[in-house]
């Protein structure tokens, strides 16, 4: 009985792990894809079938050629050899046995000479279609074949002995590739595409918004929680009511306000309006209400000012709530896109934030997904590093937001 219980336990655990791992793979795969693609060369990103790791075609220096030649794995006499592509687009024909059209050879046109009769090419009709007849060199022997199609071939040569040449289709040949990471993509993106400046701007904005919002929320939350003043409760209800209002309602008037104040295209527009929020105040107020009153009253009797009480008693006690608010604000400020898109213009790039720079990068580097994804990585990795360092904070913040709400 006990044993079978254990067995079923193990089985259900195993099942749980399988399900969890499956989901984890789905969750992680896009990030891995981003990371590996950001180290590729543009051509490699269009490879089909898609591969995760960055590959690069190998080239070999060959005497007599200015540029190094691309290497391919070519089958020679049943063995795979590393050959170089010396010439492309060699006109070729598909030559077939008139008796059996499926038995065909694809060879350069130079290996074939048309069979003439009275100066006219000889035509052979197979299955109702007329084909020209050629003398074709197949290996060492000459065959009389009909040309059924045209194509082109590449000449692959042994890099050590250029006279050993094999002709075959270039596109379908297997290039010799090796895994090679291109970290310089990041340098490219940071410098050329202005992501470096966007990164510092985003850091600055996030820092100021988080700090500012913490200050106003803590102070305001304290006033709502502990200080009696006329109109407090109706004001609080008003605050609460506005939490639900979607930001889109505010976009247009806020934009017009920014135009009036002259903050369009200025970092100030990304910081100052975001320092004051109803949500943060609400969050802090909810927490401060739960702090016991007696310590505070004792301090008041000792002659402490309200500010001292806030600093000495409430602030230390509110660490979890502050962490929650800081986490949310951080993510919001770092990832926001709609408002910067509206208020920061594309022209003067020195005031771009990461999301905006990314939006421009995707247009400019549409032909280089490796760069676009390197840009995406630059915007995604910093919060992710923070998340790994302070995982507990993030997840507990999320948890508390659900329970309290």
């Amino acid at each position: 009985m006990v044993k079978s219980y254990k067995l079923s336990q193990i089985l259900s655990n195993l099942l749980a792990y399988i399900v969890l791992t499956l989901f984890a793979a789905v969750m992680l795969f896009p990030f891995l894809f981003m990371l590996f693609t950001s180290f590729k060369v543009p051509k490699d990103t269009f490879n089909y079938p898609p591969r995760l790791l960055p590959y690069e075609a190998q080239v070999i220096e060959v005497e007599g050629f200015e540029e190094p030649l691309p290497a391919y794995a070519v089958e020679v006499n049943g063995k795979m050899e590393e050959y170089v592509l010396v010439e492309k687009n060699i006109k070729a024909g598909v030559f077939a046995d008139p008796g059996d059209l499926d038995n065909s050879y694809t060879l350069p046109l130079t290996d074939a000479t048309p069979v003439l009769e009275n100066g006219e090419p000889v035509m052979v009709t197979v299955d109702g279609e007329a084909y020209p007849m050629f003398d074709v060199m197949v290996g060492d022997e000459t065959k009389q074949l009909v040309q059924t199609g045209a194509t082109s071939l590449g000449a692959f040569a042994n890099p050590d002995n250029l006279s050993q040449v094999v002709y075959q289709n270039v596109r379908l040949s297997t290039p010799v590739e090796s895994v090679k990471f291109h970290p310089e993509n990041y340098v490219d993106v940071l410098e050329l595409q202005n992501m470096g400046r966007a990164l510092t701007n985003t850091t600055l904005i996030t820092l100021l918004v988080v700090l500012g919002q913490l200050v106003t929320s803590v102070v305001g939350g304290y006033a709502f929680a502990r200080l009696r003043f006329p109109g407090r409760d109706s004001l609080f209800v008003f605050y609460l009511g506005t939490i639900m209002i979607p930001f889109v309602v505010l976009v247009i008037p806020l934009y017009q306000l920014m135009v009036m104040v002259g903050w369009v295209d200025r970092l100030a527009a990304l910081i100052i309006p975001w320092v004051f929020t109803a949500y943060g105040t609400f969050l802090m107020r909810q927490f401060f209400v739960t702090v016991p009153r007696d310590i505070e009253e004792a301090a008041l009797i000792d002659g402490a000012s309200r500010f001292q009480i806030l600093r000495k008693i409430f602030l230390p006690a509110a660490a979890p709530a502050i962490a929650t608010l800081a986490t949310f604000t951080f993510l919001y400020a770092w990832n926001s896109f709609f408002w910067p898109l509206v208020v920061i213009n594309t022209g003067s790039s020195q005031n771009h934030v990461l999301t905006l720079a990314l939006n421009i990068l995707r247009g400019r580097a549409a032909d280089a997904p490796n760069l676009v994804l390197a840009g995406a990585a630059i915007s995604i990795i910093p919060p992710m590093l923070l998340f790994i360092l302070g995982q507990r904070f993030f997840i507990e913040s999320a948890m508390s937001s659900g329970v309290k709400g």
Partner: protein
Amino acid sequence: MLGNAFISIDPKTKNLIRVTSVWHIVLAAVALILGIATAAGSVLLELRGVLRIVLIVICIFTAAASGWAVYELWGFRRRGRTISLVVNYLGFILFFVLSLHFLQVFIDIDKLGETFGRGLIALVGVVIGYLISAFGDRFEGKPELSQQYSKVGKWVALISFFVFLLLVGIIPAIATLISRMANPFIFSLVLMTAVFGFFIWTIWREPSAAALKANNAHKEALDGFLFLSPNLLGFLLFFAGPLLFSLYVSFTDWDAFGNKNWVGLQNYAKIFNLNVQPMDSPDMVVTEVLDTTVYDELTRVKLLGKNFMIGAQDKLFWISLRNTLLFGLLAVPLSVIPALLLSNVLNSKIPGMKFFRAVYFLPSIAATVGVSLIWQWLYNAAVGNINYFITVAVNFFNSTFGLALVDPQIRWLSDTKTALIAIVIMAAWQTMGYNTVLFLAGLQNIPKELYEAAVVDGAGTFRKFWNITVPLLAPTTFFVITTSIIQALQMFEQVFVMTNPPGGPNNSTLTVVLYLYQNGFQRFKQGYASATAWVLFLVIFGVTLFQFQRQRNSEAYDI
């Protein structure tokens, strides 16, 4: 009694209060004159419509409040202190902000952005300092050692911060600030700030408070206003004010260049202008049924055996609303149901759960723009990974089971049938982990005894889940669903980044917010866009209210 009170006031305080009264008289007079001058239109400042009215209103209120303050202060009444402080405080803030504005402090945050990168290293020093002092807390048994640590940490942080300021360029900044103050206009602003500050001090100081018979409740209320004021002022300026303004704009035909006319309800009328016409046969052409100079075909319905064509004056709004609701309808369950199941698996006490929890959480902290770019490539019809996986799977099934499945070759983002679904899948991927964590929090609040009791009663896993977990998780579920819906109805970034043209193909991913953006910032119908925003707000409000109602009802049954 009254006489006694006067005797206890020392002459200095009495004089200060008298001076303040005089200040209020001056302030009232100046405000009155300025207000009248502005109203008469003879002010040097060239002010445009709304601003002029605002200035007049401010002047009138300043004058009235100041006059009142004089009256109350003269009688040494408490209320005089309140009014005087409020007037002076607001004046102080106003002139302080104006000074900052004209000193270009706000605008120069840009320049800080330029130099900030240089100072980042020093900021790391601040963090290290904090870590050192926090490390000291580990030595709880040895207070001396812990103090030592916190002291060292403090100094490291302070010095690093100082270095940071230097690196960022505080010295030239201060120099320019001072040189700018030489401007007489700016200087007078700063001076006014100081004057207001001085009169706050005259009334705020303890002897004045006593002289004006301040009691505890009065002081507490003032403290309350003071503490709330930064938040409240900012909130009014950047939230409540724009909110009202937005309502006003929605009744105009405002463009982004300052041209506006009051159009009343016209914007709303255009949004809601629908026309239903019966059709003789279901495949009639729109020009035969509707007045196409006004309406466009929205959809066709068959009702009670009769065919109708619905036309709308603004077809795109209704299409965007449909897409938005459809998105919510698909994305919410897709991100909530797997999350509910996953959280139950995660809640079992087997090792490694924290790792999985962290992995699931990852997508929700990544920027949506970045994530959209990643998925755009995954969705690529020709070389994308998703189609490749499908091809591999189809080939696998075909070869192992001898089936003849056809590789669908889905053109995810360029096919009207799949574009919205593609975005739904991505959005669900991004929010699922967050919801899982929320459910996990809810699950941990469910008492274990309930499950134990159920096991004793012989309940299986499924019955435990259905009879205990689901009902007790209802509050969390409510929260998750409500926030998910609110988020889903505001979808914008994904579509903006992933589809080309945004909202395409054939408007199949046009959402309300995207439509609003296009109207407001591409076609410059900001009045109309504002009206759209309010309609969206009403929809969100309605959905949330409906949720609340259901939540209340279900609670009544469950408990």
